């Protein structure tokens, strides 16, 4: 869990460049970012391989340590993991399998890991997508209002609220909301289901009623995740905006006769969105961890719950596949965000 990222990054003096050909800078930037992402992906793939083979001693014995395994099972495990082959050979096999999408069979479900992951993908996307969008909108707005009213009651309350939410494990918030609104506490009746994604009595999974039912099931998880994410976004936006508001060009803008409110909006806030985007992107791992824990608490059958269930067996093929998918998703999101950022900030592409 990353602690609030400090915004104290040194600002190195930018050397003035005079590239006359427009666009060349952009392609160079895009190219370098794509290359960087591919490098990171390769690193993850290799890392994934060595994670399970870094254990001292006999891997199979260690992996099977808490379970009573027969010799036959040990043999099967050894064969599945390809451990009787020399290491370089194993690595090559692993690479080939990864690039062909072959992640092996799940120990638990006895199905191809790839299929299972695709099956469980959309609940996670729905949950995380909705929550991050809501959280970004509300959080940025809250941070903005806080910064504009620095020191006043609005700011103190909002910042205190965000700090407290940020210090809270998001799954604990989920537990509390579950207990109060799903189970019902005191005068509050049971308003939401206690878990799962679908009610058992839904006939037609493609009907509008089914859609509503899913939304009803996702309500509490989305509320929980939105609250958890927005705390961070609001704190970052507030901090970035306060930084921008103290810059010299704001004084210049005011000196030109522009109204303070206009200067705040058009100059400071717009510019503050840039470092906010950067810092938010830096914390995408938090989005993933939120998905995992909240799915577990609310029993949403997505990738997160898949991962925690895989811990028990332990279902190594699934764990490897999940690790790869999550990392690839974050790398990809990073890339998209960096590219979008370059469109917003002319300083990086010229």
């Amino acid at each position, binding site marked *: 869990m990353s602690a609030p990222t400090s915004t104290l990054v040194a600002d190195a003096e930018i050397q003035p460049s005079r590239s006359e050909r427009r666009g060349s800078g952009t392609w160079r930037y895009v190219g370098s970012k794509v290359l960087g992402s591919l490098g990171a992906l390769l690193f993850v793939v290799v890392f994934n391989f060595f994670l399970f083979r870094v254990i001292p001693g006999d891997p199979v014995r260690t992996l099977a340590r808490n379970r009573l395994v027969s010799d036959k099972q040990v043999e099967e495990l050894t064969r599945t993991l390809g451990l009787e082959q020399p290491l370089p050979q194993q690595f090559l096999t692993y690479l080939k399998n990864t690039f062909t999408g072959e992640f092996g069979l799940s120990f638990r479900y006895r199905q191809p890991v790839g299929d299972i992951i695709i099956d469980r993908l959309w609940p996670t996307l729905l949950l995380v997508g909705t929550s991050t969008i809501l959280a970004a909108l509300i959080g940025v707005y809250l941070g903005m209002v806080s910064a504009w009213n620095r020191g006043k009651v609005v700011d103190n309350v909002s910042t205190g609220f965000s700090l407290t939410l940020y210090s809270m494990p998001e799954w604990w918030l989920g537990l509390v909301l579950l207990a109060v609104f799903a189970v019902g506490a005191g005068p509050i009746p049971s308003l939401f289901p206690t878990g799962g994604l679908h009610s058992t009595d839904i006939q037609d999974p493609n009907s509008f009623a089914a859609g509503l039912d899913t939304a009803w099931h996702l309500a509490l998880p989305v509320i929980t995740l939105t609250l958890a994410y927005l705390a961070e976004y609001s704190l970052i936006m507030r901090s970035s905006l306060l930084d921008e508001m*103290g810059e010299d060009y704001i004084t210049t803008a005011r000196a030109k006769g522009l109204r303070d409110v206009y200067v705040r909006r058009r100059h400071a806030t717009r510019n503050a969105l840039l470092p906010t985007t950067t810092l938010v992107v830096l914390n995408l791992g938090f989005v993933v961890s939120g998905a995992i824990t909240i799915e577990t608490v609310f029993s949403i059958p997505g990738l997160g719950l898949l*991962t925690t269930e895989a811990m028990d067996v332990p279902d190594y093929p699934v764990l490897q596949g999940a690790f790869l998918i999550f990392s690839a998703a974050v790398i990809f999101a990073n890339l998209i965000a960096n590219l979008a950022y370059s469109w917003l900030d002319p300083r990086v592409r010229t």
Partner: protein
Amino acid sequence: MTTTSKPALTARQVAWRRRRQSAGRTWAEFRRHRSGLVGLGVLVVFGLAAICAPLLASHESIEVTKATGGVLEAPSWDYPLGTDADGRSVLALLIWGSRVSLMVGLLATAISMLLGTLVGLASGHYHNFFGKALFRITEWFLVVPWLPLAIVLSTVLGPSLLTVAFVIGIVSWPATALLIRAQTLSIESRPYLERARALGAGDWRQMRRHVLPNVMPMVFANTTLTVAGAILTETTLAFLGLSDPLYVSWGSMLDEAFNVGAITTGAWWFMLPPGICVIVVVLAFTLIGQALEEVYNPRLRERA
């Protein structure tokens, strides 16, 4: 003007006196941040509770075999915070749990800060292939989402307090390294470093004598924030069942609460206190860290 008759101080004595004065000034400045002081106070309370745990609740009270209470009893005079599913006093569990949560948090932070500072200094100082490679590795680790990595590592390494601390250290060092690197780059661009280099200062000497003392304040502020993150991470990992089953921590209490259905039975005394403790302690560290940041970076203060 008459000359003094006191014996001259050695350079080392002067240096130490300056350090003490500087520390005094830092403390005076920190005192002006009420939020930081509140955080510090809270930490002292929890720290004392953790250290004095045997005095506050006997170790027997958290042993499953010696539990005397009923299952998930509501709070009463005997058990101010009720009991858990094994009949143990929740209050006792909370006190003993603070030890694990705080210790693992601090140990993990030590690992993370050590690794992060070393890599950050090196990648900021060395501009050759070595430095650049370290930076790339930092970036890659930064991109990997921490929880899947922690889950995989914990599953492979097995659950024990040390491995949990190690895992947390592994997932949190890149953020520190990035910060330290940026700070190192900034410090090394200053003229007096150039002068030191011109005078023949080697890499190690430069780093030790010039860069490190200037980086330390930021490291210090960052450390408190890292502890906050580490405690949250430990709690999450324990909740998912990845912590040492032999020890009680706030996270493992919540894991147990979840597993025995404290939610559905409404056993709030089991569910709320551990979470509240985590929030309070993490918030305390965060407030201290933010106050320290403002103390060390005047630019953050008084932004009119």
